């Protein structure tokens, strides 16, 4: 997703920012709404045949799925699950990728060579292929799908942190710290890391969207979350047989997924643009 960072933030950037913050407000609401309204994504309806379909004036607002479960409730809980999953994937991949990137950038030499070579190997295979291979080795399930999404996300953090910390190491203040007798580890902690935080946050935001997408793709293939968990990718897969009779079961989960990914892409994108030295806003 970093390929979008070379474009200058246009005036339209403000409205794009509004879109992304709107999506995030929706996600926050998905945590608050169930506290107020009675939503149950797992309750089966008593009369299945009568309950499939759109809203008919009473009952669930967005209708029910093939098992008579409330679609709105499943969408809302799907949002909660996606946020939780995305957050876990981003935090773990960040806590692995950032130190590795720092070591590669700060120490250089053979440490750098080894870390970057391994990262390069991981990045050769397309993300989704690598994720599928990992899941096929570890066995299908939500946890293994999350592991796969984490492994796939790590190289992005390593790359961004390494390139910034390698640049920072050439700065005068690092030389000054070294002359005053600071150890490399101390320089890493007090001089280099603070300069990496904002790009890390930008990468994490982009990674959040990518993680949600990868997990949804694995769920869609039936390699992730197990039923009856409310998850957008799995909802899409479940809805495929009903594409003719009940298209809203296809449209709604996908729309939620796309909007969330768009929101995080926009947010990460504008964060990166804001930081991009070429635009001259920062640095």
């Amino acid at each position, binding site marked *: 997703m970093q*390929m*979008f960072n*070379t*474009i*200058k933030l*246009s*005036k*339209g950037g403000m409205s*794009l920012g509004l879109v992304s913050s709107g999506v995030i407000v929706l996600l926050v609401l998905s945590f608050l709404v169930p506290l107020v309204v009675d939503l149950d994504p797992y309750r089966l309806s008593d009369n299945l045949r009568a309950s499939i379909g759109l809203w008919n004036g009473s009952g669930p607002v967005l209708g029910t799925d093939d098992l008579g479960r409330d679609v709105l409730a499943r969408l809302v809980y799907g949002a909660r699950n996606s946020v939780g999953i995305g957050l876990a994937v981003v935090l773990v991949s960040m806590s692995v990728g950032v130190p590795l990137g720092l070591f590669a950038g700060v120490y250089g030499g053979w440490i750098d060579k080894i870390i970057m*070579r*391994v990262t*390069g*190997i991981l990045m*050769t*295979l*397309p*993300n*989704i*292929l690598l994720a*599928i*291979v990992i*899941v*096929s*080795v*570890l*066995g299908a399930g939500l946890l293994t799908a999350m592991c796969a999404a984490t492994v796939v996300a790590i190289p992005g953090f390593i790359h961004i942190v390494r390139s910034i910390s390698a640049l920072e190491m050439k700065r005068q203040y690092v030389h000054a710290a070294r002359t005053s007798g600071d150890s490399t580890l101390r320089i890493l902690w007090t001089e280099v890391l603070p300069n990496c935080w904002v790009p890390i946050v930008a990468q994490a935001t982009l990674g959040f*969207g990518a993680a949600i*997408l990868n997990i*949804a*793709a694995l769920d*869609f*293939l*039936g*390699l992730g979350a197990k039923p009856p968990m409310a998850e957008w990718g799995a909802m*899409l897969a479940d809805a*495929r047989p009903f*594409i*003719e009779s009940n*298209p809203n079961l*296809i*449209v709604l989960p*996908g729309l939620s*997924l*796309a909007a969330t*990914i*768009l929101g995080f*892409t*926009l947010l990460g*994108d504008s964060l990166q643009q804001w930081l991009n030295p070429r635009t001259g806003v920062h640095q």
Partner: protein
Amino acid sequence: MFKLGSLTTTLLGISLIAFFAIRLVPGDPVVLMIGERGADPEQYREAVTRLGLDKPVLWQYTSFLGRAVQGDLGTSISSGREVSTELLARWPATLELGAAALLLAVLVGVPIGVVAAIYRDTLIDRLLTACSLAGYSTPNFWLGLLLILLFSVALNLLPVSGRLDTAFDVSNVTGFMLVDTLLPAARARYGLFAFYSALHHLVLPTVTMATIPIAVFARMTRASMVEVLSEDYILAARARGLSPVRIIGLHALRNALLPIIVVIGLHFLNVAIAGAIMTETIFGWPGIGSYIVSSVYARDYPVIQGSILVIGVVVILTNGAVDVLSRLANPRMR
């Protein structure tokens, strides 16, 4: 000039992943490689010696590598056929879809980028940018389902899956359906109808797979064009009174496209294979992507192993070729 060393280590790394992935799977590797059905004691012992599982791991790895170099990727558990034969039979379908998607992505993405750059910071630019971002953020498996919903279910215009209508019986010569249906034998039987059917089947998967590359190419082209349009020689050309069409077509586009060609080469294969996995699964397209997914369902580990290796090699070689080409095309990079 050619980063041969780095290519070789990456290749070795991929082969290590392919080799050791199977050994991380819980369970007996022999049973994993020959399947539950073939596990009677005699076949078991035969497999142990054939796979060299009684020898040291290093020996196993080098012999795996040696056999892979000779094109022997083992035998599929589910079909009992050579993995290399199976993969070879499925490449044309993936390549056909990938080539169609690449063509569409270049034909749509590059002009969008050029127009956005010319009308930079106007409403047109912002609209195109928003569209490409939306396209970039749309999960391709959902887009595929939406296209099926619209064009197959609602409008009944295009087929849902497969490469050719079952009414046609076209012999598989090249594996490329668009070529096979145009060969004299097929032409004699069906005229151009088989070709039209193949084209029909290609539309939805191509659009599904091309959407993300379109967005990427559009934004890349825009960025490159914006940079080139601010160069002095464009100003000079404008001062000389050349027509805008001439300036953009002859002076700007040529210089702006070079970095884009590199991007197209570098990212396309990655995007194509990643896209192929989801797109082929949705549209029942009999290529590498759907083959990998069904092998994962069937726990057909030799196939998964072989696919990783083959895709790794293809990606690495393409990256190398793009690298060489871009250096040849741009003397400044030499």
